[in-house]
């Protein structure tokens, strides 16, 4: 079985089979991540396309000994999203050391899908990406830390705050 590094090299040489293998393994995850982050379908499509074009044009950027291809592709998507959502990203969300007030909500309480989606989109980007990766993509903390270029502890902390903020928003204590 060809390694991810080999597949990337082959794809960069125009090998369609290698492209298909990589694309079908990663496309949907990348699309969902971009959609959860941007809330816009066409932006998500462009991010996926730009992501693969970046891999095609600079295959040497991926080093299989340093991480998985999935992590690498999500990292590219994240950078592309940061460029697109620059203004939003520039906002100072909440100090890393300032916890949001405890949400007095039952985490098992039901909400409509659309209200949850809107609440996720309203999160500051640093928390939104932690939630999108760990809770919606079901990535491990370690994988998320690689993509977000931060420590595992930071991922945990952002995820904790993100979830708490979501609960508050859904409970109506914070405007979505």
């Amino acid at each position, binding site marked *: 079985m060809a390694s991810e590094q080999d597949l990337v090299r082959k794809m960069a*040489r125009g090998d*369609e089979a290698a*492209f298909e293998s990589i694309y079908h393994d990663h*496309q*949907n995850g990348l699309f969902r991540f971009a959609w959860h982050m941007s809330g816009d379908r066409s932006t998500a499509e462009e991010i996926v396309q730009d992501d693969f074009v970046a891999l*095609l044009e600079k295959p040497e950027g991926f080093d299989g000994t340093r991480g998985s291809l999935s992590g690498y592709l999500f990292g590219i998507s994240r950078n592309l999203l940061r460029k697109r959502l620059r203004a939003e990203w520039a906002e100072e969300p909440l100090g890393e050391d300032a916890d949001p007030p405890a949400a007095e909500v039952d985490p098992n309480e039901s909400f409509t*899908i659309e209200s949850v989606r809107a609440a996720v989109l309203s999160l500051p980007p640093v928390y939104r990406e932690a939630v999108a990766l760990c809770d*919606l993509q079901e990535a491990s903390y370690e994988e998320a830390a690689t993509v977000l270029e931060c420590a595992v502890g930071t991922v945990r902390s952002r995820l*904790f705050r993100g979830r708490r903020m979501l609960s508050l928003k859904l409970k109506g204590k914070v405007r979505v």
Partner: protein
Amino acid sequence: MNERPRFLANLADEDRAMQTPRRVEAAIRQRVAAVRKPSPWRFLWPVVLTTVAAIGWLRPQAQAPPPMVEIARVVEPMRAVPELVLPAKAIAPRIAKALPRVTAPVQERITRRFYELAYAPPELLANSRMMRVRVPRAALLSFGLPLSAYRAQDEKVAADVIYTEDGIARAIRFVEDQNQE
């Protein structure tokens, strides 16, 4: 809140079926198809020059070898014969038989024999090219061909050189102008 809340699990389940539209794949596929492997023939001319220089170096010691610059300068492509596909099991004598007949001008006589310059595995020969170059006439001596001492010094002779994809010259045949003989 260390565990994923149910509302997020529900959203993840709901979105799991979300798929990238086919047009995205089509657009990327187009880019992949547009990638062109750089031609291995881009190194052909440096290799031709090197080969000609090597042939010149093989000239007998009795003759003063011309300076390298001089050798390099006499290399003139006469015409590139379109791509030839040689049989996979070809070896030097078979190469000559396998080659298509060249419609040569009346005055031109192409020697039928190819001289092997370097061994090539059959899979390399399957995709090779021939190029017409001019080499010092004295190169004929390197292959045991007759040569007039009066003409050895300065004249050039046309030769067809077969190159494999790795850029190495594998065989050579000389093209004589009958008017000059």
